């Protein structure tokens, strides 16, 4: 993966920069020792590593503003970092950058039940947002699988999703306001407790902009009362196509499940070997979960099973208790671990129209044979967000490159089928050079024009999202006046 050459003029002024940063931050919040900056050398896309020049850990909006203003004046690129769980390399440093970590900003600022909102500092983890309100019966809906560790700042940067998006939407649908610090240190308040934006929906474009428009230090999030209960049904089919048709029929019948998860045979076999959840021996497995009171759940599951029976399932297992629910979810929740037990894997994230599912799965199977690499498919079927897991051996020379080439082919297939490169992980560096597959230069110009407004010098996370040759002219700027 190509990254821009570090700017020697920036590297040469490291000590001057550190001295200036130490004037606005406590000593323990400025990390410049080569051994210590290595802790920030990568995120969850561990195939790529590069220690930053400096890492800073500000504790307030004011400190973030001070840091950014200094970096702006010094012409130093800044890579914002939440908890570093990005699978797309969103927080990968360059050697001449300052990593700005928000981990020290994790307070709850306000909990407001009458308006069903919570305001938090952006370093707070996703799960601990729910943790702050669950005793009172509330929760924060977006639930990326990394929710124990991932920060709200990163969720906003990547517009993170999760398993329950079909009903509750993704981050952007649950984000009501932010405090944003621009690269020159300007602090802007956007949105808040009111429901819709006045003026342009800048909040909508900030969410998912991968830390390229500003650093979010505080966020107002929508919280919801927990449903009375939730229970899944598990169904097995001897054909992917039939499982896909069943998903479509459930949706058409007017039932809106909170989650519809899909696993194919390689994934079922791997998780059975790993977790022994007692899944049936079949080609495709669906887990469909609904919410409500006990009677409402029974009614909805009844409707769903009636539809499933029309598709001749090899197994139909309705959960009647919390224990049975846990068993049904056990295999799905250990799917990534199970695949990781077999070998190293690369997790893809393309989305396809649900109707293309059988075609795309068939093509992935054929490509798996062509590349000689196994693939397991586990994904959110209700919204078409696929997570093919390609197995490879990191210790075998050339295997990573082969896997990346295979992955790129799968993502191109997703776009050809009417879908997109990434449903919830983000572009980062991982899919940066594939952007031309989905967008024309005019499409990319329109997106880059937004960054031109927020960050005219292109200093914030500059080498991400857009193909390097598309953003070259903007990124290569004269070093700020000295």
């Amino acid at each position, binding site marked *: 993966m190509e990254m821009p050459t570090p700017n020697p003029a920036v590297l040469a002024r490291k000590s001057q920069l550190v001295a200036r940063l130490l004037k606005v931050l406590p000593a323990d919040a400025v990390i410049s020792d080569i051994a210590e900056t290595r802790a920030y050398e990568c995120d969850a896309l561990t195939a790529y590593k590069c220690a930053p020049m400096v890492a800073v850990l500000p504790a307030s909006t004011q400190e973030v503003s001070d840091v950014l203003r200094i970096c702006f004046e010094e012409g130093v690129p800044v890579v914002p970092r939440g908890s570093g769980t990005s699978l797309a390399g969103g927080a990968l440093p360059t050697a001449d950058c300052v990593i700005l970590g928000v981990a020290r900003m994790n307070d709850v600022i306000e909990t407001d039940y009458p308006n069903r909102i919570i305001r938090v500092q952006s370093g707070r983890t996703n799960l601990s947002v729910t943790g702050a309100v669950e005793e009172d019966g509330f929760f924060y809906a977006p639930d990326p699988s990394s929710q124990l560790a991932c920060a709200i700042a990163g969720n906003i940067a990547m517009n993170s999703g999760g398993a329950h998006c079909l009903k509750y939407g993704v981050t952007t649908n649950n984000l009501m306001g932010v405090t944003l610090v621009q690269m020159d240190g300007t602090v802007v308040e956007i949105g808040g407790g009111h429901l819709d934006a006045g003026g342009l929906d*800048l909040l909508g474009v900030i969410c998912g902009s991968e830390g390229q428009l500003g650093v979010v230090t505080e966020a107002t999030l929508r919280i919801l009362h927990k449903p009375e209960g939730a229970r899944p049904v598990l169904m097995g089919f001897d054909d992917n196509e039939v499982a896909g048709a069943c998903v479509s029929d459930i949706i058409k019948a007017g039932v809106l499940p909170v989650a519809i998860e899909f696993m194919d045979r390689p994934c079922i076999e791997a998780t059975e070997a790993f977790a022994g959840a007692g899944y049936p021996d079949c080609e495709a497995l669906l887990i469909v979960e609904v919410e409500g009171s006990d009677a409402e759940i029974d009614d909805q599951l009844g409707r769903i099973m009636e539809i499933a029976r029309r598709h001749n399932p090899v197994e139909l297992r309705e959960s009647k208790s919390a224990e049975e629910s846990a068993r049904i979810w056990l295999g799905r929740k250990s799917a990534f671990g199970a695949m990781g037990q077999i070998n190293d894997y690369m997790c893809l994230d393309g989305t396809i129209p649900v109707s293309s599912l059988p075609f795309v799965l068939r093509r992935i199977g054929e490509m798996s044979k062509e590349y000689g690499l196994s693939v397991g498919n586990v994904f959110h079927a209700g919204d078409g967000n696929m997570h093919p897991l390609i197995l490879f051996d990191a210790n075998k020379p050339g295997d990573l490159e082969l896997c990346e080439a295979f992955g790129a082919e799968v993502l191109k297939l997703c776009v050809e089928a009417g879908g997109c490169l990434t449903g919830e992980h983000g572009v980062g560096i991982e899919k940066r050079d594939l952007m031309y597959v989905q967008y024309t230069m005019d499409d990319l110009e329109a997106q880059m024009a937004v960054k031109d407004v927020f960050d005219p010098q292109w200093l914030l996370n500059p080498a991400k999202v857009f193909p390097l040759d598309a953003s070259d002219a903007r990124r290569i700027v004269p070093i700020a006046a000295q």
Partner: protein
Amino acid sequence: MMTPRSEEELAAMIVAARGPLAVQGGGTRGFAGAGDELSSAGLSGIDLYEPGALTLVARAGTPVAEIEAALAGENQRLAFEPMDHRALLGTTGQPTIGGVMAANVSGPRRIAVGAARDFALGVRFVDGSGRIVKNGGRVMKNVTGYDLVKLMCGSFGTLGVLSEVAMKVLPKPETQASLVIGTADVGQAVAALARGLGSPFEVTGAAFLPDRGAVVRIEGFEASVSYRLGALHAVLGGFGDIERLDAEASQSLWQSVRDVQRFAERAGDVWRISVKPSDAPSVVAALPEGAEYLLDWGGGLIWVLCAERTDLRAGIAPFAGHATLVRADAQTRAQLGVFQPEAPALGALTNGVRARFDPRGLLNARRTLAA
């Protein structure tokens, strides 16, 4: 009026324009600026509808009625319940889906499921330089690049002219019913609505009509609606006497709330105020003598009918939010401004984005969004 029949023709017209363009869909919402009229109504038709994927793609000028009819055929609907402005504004013509998205028009269900912008999956548009741009797509989860779909929703035609939109649609529930809590006190009403919205019973409408009471709506399968209404009745009993509205009465009441029917054909200006729901009682208390109001979105949306040329913005200044002048004569609109002025730093961003997307300042030019 210019009514291009294709995206290419639309682009050519924008390139050839030498003065301001009044960008509109069906022209029913009164948001077009001054200049030569440019309507997307000629770009019409549903391009793709997959009920099993909850997805519909239509050209921007497609009438909302055509889309709603197609959806109804599959027992689905536009869940954000777009308002019809015609009765309130006394306009005629066909509301279009492009107009709905450009003005981010939502109705009562917005409080539960989100606004038009939350259901927009993809757009195609022509910007002020005549550049054809696509963003997003037709799938529900898509984080590939920046989300210009949201930016275009609610940009009132100032960044570009929409040519196509892709939407998420939802199943239409089997039935609905509502509870009316008899209270005339706005504070009591907003508290009752907050209790309903903060319950696990999935309230999909929460309004206050001062002469009638606080109203909450439940939708779903028959048995579920019946169960949830009973549960809500127990939660809200303490706020006043409760009357139950069956499906038909409930539907008619919510349509009247959606379209603000009670201010139609009445003299006076109409304002739309967006605040934090719990601020609604204080905002209402500060309204000028003689003003009438109704609340939607649990209090988060305040519709006000007041004497002509009254500036309501000073009254909401202590609260976060904004006020839009929805109905007034041209002079008042020019004098008070249709949109709330933005804080300087935010205004700079807005103006910067507009300058990039429409460098010649042609598109709904005088419909200023920022200060």
